[in-house]
């Protein structure tokens, strides 16, 4: 495995191999890769992704260099992305990049001879979040095939949605419902290439009782072209007790986090709420990913 730019970069077998390795790591398998250096180039804010990549690297005994905002780097002096990446590839064995521009990770991968991992590029993709999402689902149901999915929220600007939809092409979901206010519908470019059936809805109520996985996303305020458009849709959906009470037994709520108001905090104690468990799996799955890319 080389670069990880898109959720398409994993085959079904590779997803399952990474899940299996993450399971072994969770059970206590120790893997050490002491000579390696990971460079984190986070041009955009991050809590979970940056910290879990750092924690995963450190658990493997690797060193981490890099930055968590472009302040303090030569980018503020006008250095372009390509030159920044050229420097980082000289100093490390693998580059983890988050950037506000769509396609920045692919561009970085073309510049770098070292593997590049996309930790989120604009509104485009976030494939390692899909690893976390699918691993959580796999651990809960012991399968991904045959499940009913409901993706709720901002399906237009959420990069995690694009990656999850693409990742699901490697499995056989029974049905996928895309539930959003009309202005936040999923991108047609992404939908056109899917190899499974999907249904677009404005409201979740007709299908809630069928769903195994309810995947909620935050409205991506920072990606809206203007504030007026954001104001029209903000707080247009909330996962509350009424929704949770309609969910079938054993079904789960996931969220890539951070959340704002789209999940009522009362839901956090519900047995359906798995989003903090999901976040906890980010470290072992990213450890497994590093091992797959860099070798033991």
């Amino acid at each position: 495995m080389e670069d990880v730019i898109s959720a398409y970069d994993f085959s079904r077998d590779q997803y399952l191999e990474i899940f299996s390795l993450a399971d072994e790591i969770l059970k206590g398998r120790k893997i050490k890769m002491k000579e390696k250096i990971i460079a984190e180039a986070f041009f955009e804010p991050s809590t979970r992704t940056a910290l879990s990549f750092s924690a995963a690297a450190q658990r493997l005994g690797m060193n981490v260099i890099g930055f968590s905002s472009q302040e303090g780097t030569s980018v503020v002096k006008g250095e372009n992305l390509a030159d920044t990446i050229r420097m980082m590839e000289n100093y490390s064995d693998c580059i983890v990049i988050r950037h506000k521009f769509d396609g920045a990770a692919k561009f970085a991968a073309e510049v770098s001879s070292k593997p590049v991992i996309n930790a989120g590029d604009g509104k485009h993709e976030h494939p390692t979040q899909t690893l976390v999402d699918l691993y959580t689902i796999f651990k809960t149901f012991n399968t991904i095939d045959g499940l009913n999915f409901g993706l709720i929220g901002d399906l237009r600007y959420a990069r995690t949605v694009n990656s999850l939809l693409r990742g699901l092409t490697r499995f056989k979901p029974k049905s996928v419902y895309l539930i959003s206010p009309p202005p936040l519908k999923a991108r047609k470019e992404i939908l056109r290439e899917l190899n499974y059936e999907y249904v677009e809805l404005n409201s979740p109520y007709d299908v809630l009782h069928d769903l195994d996985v309810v995947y909620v996303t935050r409205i991506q305020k920072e990606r809206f072209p203007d504030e007026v458009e954001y104001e029209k849709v903000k707080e247009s959906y909330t996962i509350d007790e009424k929704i949770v009470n309609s969910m079938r037994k054993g079904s789960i709520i996931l969220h890539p986090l951070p959340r704002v108001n789209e999940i009522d905090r009362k839901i956090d104690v519900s047995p359906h709420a798995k989003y903090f468990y999901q976040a906890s799996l980010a470290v072992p799955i990213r450890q497994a990913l590093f091992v797959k890319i860099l070798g033991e």
Partner: protein
Amino acid sequence: MENGLIVTKIKDGTVIDHIPAGRALAVLKILGIKGNEGNRVALVMNVDSHRIGKKDIVKIEERVINNVESELITLIAPNATINIIRNYEVAEKRKLRIPDIVVGILKCQNPLCITNNDPEGISKFSSVSKVPIVLKCDYCDTELTEDDVLRQILS
């Protein structure tokens, strides 16, 4: 010539036929022909065509268009034929096909695409549909339709 419009044969140069009606000016734009280059150019618009109903034709003397120009022409005139003329005879019939990949010619319409934001960024599109033409940005997945391509070329 159809409809009694008479355009004489050219001795050496290029004849582009079966251009969709009204797009001959866009073809000239692709070829960078402004009229002051000195070449004799014949432009025929909106003549009847058995194949495509109405069509435009462009004839350019003393110029053989290159493959990149040919590819670009297919994006706005997918059924065009390009004949290279030498000494009044057709010396070469260019087999035109919509390219699988278009590099560095068109601009991604997504202002937040990396190709519009790094000085080393070069646009790259893959064709995901040939009829109708749809090109997809290799970096951000934003699509360009035939109309988008035409608009870019004419702008």
